[in-house]
């Protein structure tokens, strides 16, 4: 699936988008997998309260299923308007 990063999450991880093959069942599982990879992921996902997630372009929670998802995006709280 495609994993997207925006704003300072993108800056910390160092790229806007990557393709990840995963067996993770939920967003939380995917985060655990990413954090285990490298320090930059550990840093980006250190404080989940500062993060938001969208699965297939819908805002959702960290315990949401990602089974069959095409796209998971991580970003800080939004600041539109």
């Amino acid at each position, binding site marked *: 699936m495609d994993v997207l990063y925006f*704003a300072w999450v993108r800056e910390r991880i160092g790229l806007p988008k990557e393709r990840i093959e995963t067996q993770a069942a939920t967003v939380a599982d995917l985060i655990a997998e990413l954090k285990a990879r490298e320090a930059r992921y550990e840093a980006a996902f250190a404080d989940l309260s500062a993060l938001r997630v969208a699965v297939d372009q819908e*805002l959702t929670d960290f315990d949401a299923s990602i089974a069959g998802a095409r796209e998971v995006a991580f970003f800080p709280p939004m600041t539109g308007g």
Partner: protein
Amino acid sequence: MIRVVVQEAPFDFGAEAAAFARGRTDLGAIVTFSGIVRDVADGLSVMEIEHYPGMTEKALEKIAAEAEARWSLGEVLVIHRHGRLEAGEQIMMVATASRHRKHAFEAAEFLMDYLKSRAPFWKKEHTEAGTGWVDATEEDEAALKRW
């Protein structure tokens, strides 16, 4: 009718305001809100707006549809820019048209409150003091509880 526009280019606020709901003689009350890049402190500032192409349009359509479901609205317009904006430039506008001024006002406030915290935009400020992502505020999050 809902119209949602997400674009990098400037838009003509006066022309959009004038054209909005034009000819709808069944709608007596029109509210617009527009947001402008402020000069932070005294140094000239530049605002960079990042967004999530695809999700942005969907999120704005959803927020506008929710407003239409809650209030009696004849027309709804949302325009939001992304990219690099200088102080004084228009970032975005919403417009609502209704038979009733209360509906037009409340719907416009609702659109703004949701757009602030639920549409995937992120602002980065470049000022003389430095560069940084704008933090979401508790005040903006709290504003959603009204609806």
